[in-house]
């Protein structure tokens, strides 16, 4: 994961920060582990309020389906041959994050007594309409922007506030992906003070 080519637009300083990056990655994984470790208590709480647990599982499973599609989308993006080195590295790294989100969501669904949805075999991506690196980055940026909105729409409706926190934590990560992809496209990376 960390032999990624440094995106040139983020300046060469990034190279000296690889150790830091590695530490940040460990923290992230640590956070994901902690999120799941708390789920025994969550599961117990939920059995006491069954209806809202079922609703939370539905919300988690829908988010899981979208994350699985994002993993497949980055796979298609990486395999289409249009991404050059710096952006290819980004795609691989962001795909890794989406995998971590999917794993965390699936484990949480199971802990709460639900059945995690399975990834689809074919997502029917509009690959034929992707003709340049820019097209691929724009497609990815659109998905990441949509993911920010989706998690924003999930935060207020979880019955369990701990799950809302998990959603907000993922939202932050998706927003960073979106900003970096916009930057790679030469667009203003942070176009507004609020997301919607």
């Amino acid at each position, binding site marked *: 994961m960390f032999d990624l080519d440094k995106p040139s637009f983020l300046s060469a300083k990034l190279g000296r920060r690889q150790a830091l990056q590695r530490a940040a990655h460990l923290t992230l994984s640590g956070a994901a582990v902690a999120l799941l470790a708390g789920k025994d208590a969550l599961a117990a709480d939920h059995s006491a309020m069954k209806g809202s647990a079922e609703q939370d599982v539905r919300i988690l499973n*829908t988010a899981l389906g979208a994350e699985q599609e994002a993993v497949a989308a980055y796979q298609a993006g990486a395999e289409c041959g249009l991404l050059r080195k710096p952006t290819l590295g980004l795609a691989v790294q962001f795909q890794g994050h989406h995998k971590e989100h999917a794993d965390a969501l699936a484990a949480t669904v199971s802990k709460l007594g639900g059945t995690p949805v399975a990834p689809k075999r074919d997502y029917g991506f509009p690959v034929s309409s992707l003709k340049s690196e820019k097209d691929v980055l724009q497609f990815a940026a659109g998905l990441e922007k*949509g993911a920010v909105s989706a998690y924003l*729409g999930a935060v207020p409706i979880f019955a369990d506030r701990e799950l809302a926190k998990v959603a907000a934590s993922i939202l932050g990560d998706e927003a960073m992906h979106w900003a970096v992809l916009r930057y790679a496209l030469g667009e203003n990376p942070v176009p507004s003070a609020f997301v919607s």
Partner: protein
Amino acid sequence: MTSRFLAALFTTVVAFTGTTAASRPQGDAARGAQIYERCIACHALKRNRTGPKHCGIFGRRAGGVAGFDYSDAMAASGTVWDSESLDRFLEAPMDAVPGTSMGYDGVKVPQDRADLIAYLQSATADSPLCR
């Protein structure tokens, strides 16, 4: 005197609230296309994804896209999609269809909903958006 004034006032108020309820804001489909970017983690106009495709939604019954695995709640809702039912659903999906798998808080600004609905209405099966 006072009671006549109150009666007149009452009539005015009823007439006024009557019109506001009946007239949702005019929608702008072009702006709706931008609002639709909030939906594209899960939806596309032309293909089923985590959520069902939207082409041809006006006049279709809820849960009506063949091959999409809807929640029981959506499949049994008995709703037919038009401006009014979409407005209600998109404001608060989980209140409008309790048990829906669309885990999303909703679009809270009436003008945003009107724009979004105008965009969905323009996505008829034979429109350029859907061909």
